[in-house]
């Protein structure tokens, strides 16, 4: 029982973290139809920025994360206007090459700025404790990830489903040219969605630094994991992203716990089989093909 609760709590908090990182990519990919392999780069920059503000400069944990998210979101709009603009409607090859190129530059930049090794992340004292939940004690940090994950994804869902901006975004995902035809500025929508997605990635990178260690090769290391979640979510489907990410989180944690030797290997094989079985996303309705 206690093992099950442990695996579930760790798995769900890990899954929510993956969801925060991936959900922005699900939305932008649904909107722009760009295979963006550089999404993890924004998460890495966010993580490094937050940790850089936290440790040497002594900025409080929460403020450091907020600043990192805002900075990455602003930076991503510049990149979107400068580089991604040319990828809308371009071939997949162009999209892959350009975004891999961005990854390389970010990896090199992070190495030059922070060195080639894993950046040690020191949590503030208040988060490095554990809380007794009755049947077992858990790290406070895990609970924080869980709480932030629920709040952020809940807020995102509200924005997507209940606001005018969300309605426009959904419309553009479903039918871009029709949305444009009724007078919605789709290219501005792209910038907003891109900033939102990159900001969320940065949040995931910063908040998740103790779980997904920050290292220069971060953009490549978590590429497969993030993109698998995106592929299994289908285009622009937030609910599916949440389910898939939590599923991946639980399976990965359980795998590491019960099969320490082949856990992640089994997970990848499972995910590949799932993509081959359901290329439009796990929850996609077959008829929409």
């Amino acid at each position: 029982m206690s093992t099950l609760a442990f695996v579930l709590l760790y798995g769900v908090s890990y899954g929510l973290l993956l969801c925060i990182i991936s959900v922005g990519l699900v939305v932008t990919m649904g909107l722009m139809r760009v295979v963006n392999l550089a999404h993890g780069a924004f998460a890495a920059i966010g993580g490094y920025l937050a940790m850089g503000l936290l440790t040497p400069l002594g900025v409080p944990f929460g403020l450091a994360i907020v600043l990192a998210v805002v900075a990455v979101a602003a930076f991503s709009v510049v990149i979107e206007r400068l580089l991604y603009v040319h990828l809308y409607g371009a071939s997949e090859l162009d999209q892959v090459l350009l975004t891999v190129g961005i990854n390389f530059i970010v990896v090199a930049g992070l190495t030059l700025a922070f060195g080639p090794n894993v950046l040690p992340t020191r949590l503030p004292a208040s988060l490095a404790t554990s809380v007794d939940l009755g049947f077992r004690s858990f790290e406070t940090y895990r609970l924080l990830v869980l709480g932030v994950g629920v709040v952020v994804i809940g807020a995102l869902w509200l924005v997507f489903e209940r606001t005018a901006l969300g309605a426009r975004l959904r419309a553009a995902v479903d039918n871009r040219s029709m949305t444009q035809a009724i007078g919605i500025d789709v290219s501005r929508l792209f910038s907003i969605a891109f900033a939102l997605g990159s900001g969320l990635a940065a949040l995931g990178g910063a908040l998740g630094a103790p779980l997904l260690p920050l290292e220069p090769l971060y953009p490549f290391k978590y590429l497969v994991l993030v993109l698998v979640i995106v592929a299994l979510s289908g285009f622009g489907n937030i609910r599916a992203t949440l389910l898939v990410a939590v599923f991946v989180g639980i399976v990965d944690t359980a795998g590491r716990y019960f099969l320490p030797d082949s856990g992640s290997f089994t997970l990848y094989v499972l995910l590949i089989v799932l993509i081959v079985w359901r290329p439009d996303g796990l929850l996609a309705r077959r008829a929409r093909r």
Partner: protein
Amino acid sequence: MSAITSPLLDRRRLRPRELVWWLLALGYFFVFPEYLAVATSVLVMALFALSLDLLLGFAGVLSLGHAVPFGIGAYACALINLAGWHEAISGALAGGAIAGLFALLIGPLILRLSGLPFIMVTLGIGAVLYEAANKAVWLTGGDNGLPGVTLDPLLGVFRWSVLGQTGYLYALGWLFALFCLTRRLVASPFGMALQGIRENPRRMQLVGAPVLRHLVVAYGLASTIAGIAGALSAQTNAFVGLEVLSLNTSIDGLVMLVLGGVGRLYGGLVGAPVYMFVQHFAREWNPYYWMFLIGALLIIVVRFSRRGLIGLLDDLLARARQRLRR
């Protein structure tokens, strides 16, 4: 011959310009006898990029896991060799055949996909095989790799020298043979069908072409060639390490091809030497500057020179010709 069909059928004819590359490759052997080992790995990567060109440039299939057949060919060839079969040519063929068989097994499943799911699956299979090779220490040696590949004299005559003369000519011979084969292939009706699929798969389906079967065959052939390239790397380095299966290898091959020019057969042959030359010196300078350089290069290629170096060369030649005419 009508004007419309001629550019396609032209591919069959050898143009004098093409001979330049092969003469340079042969000339290198005599001019730089002390740098043959590096040049041999350039030839191997050129062959790898050529196999990717068949897949990407002609069938329009973008795989981010082309290191998979390369690595399988390398490991298969090394294992056969270590088991006691030391003949080189059949060893390379066996490596290619096993890589090709693997591709024929997974091809029918994954080639139904396109776009992001396909890219993801190829990336994922690469990651899984890398992990598997890392874990299966009893088979692959894990991190330590498989050292000690030894070969009988080539054709029973040419011994494998320390400076790598035999290795260089051996790799060049394979590259030439497989290049001619690929050239024939893309000019054949099958090659035309592949290019049709690249341009518009749905329309090809409508005119009755067996799209999936064509793609599987193309994937199998490209993987066989990539497997032979991997086998050559195992034989000429006398060693196989994990990096043959890594994402880096896939991306290296892709960048070399794009740098030279996609869909022109010579893309990899031009791209590989340029890429590896720049890489060699940039890495000596600072390994991270190399990553900046390659990242910037990729962005520049996408933004300004989609036809690669060969396209650039074509443009320059055309301009020079115009000036001469004036």
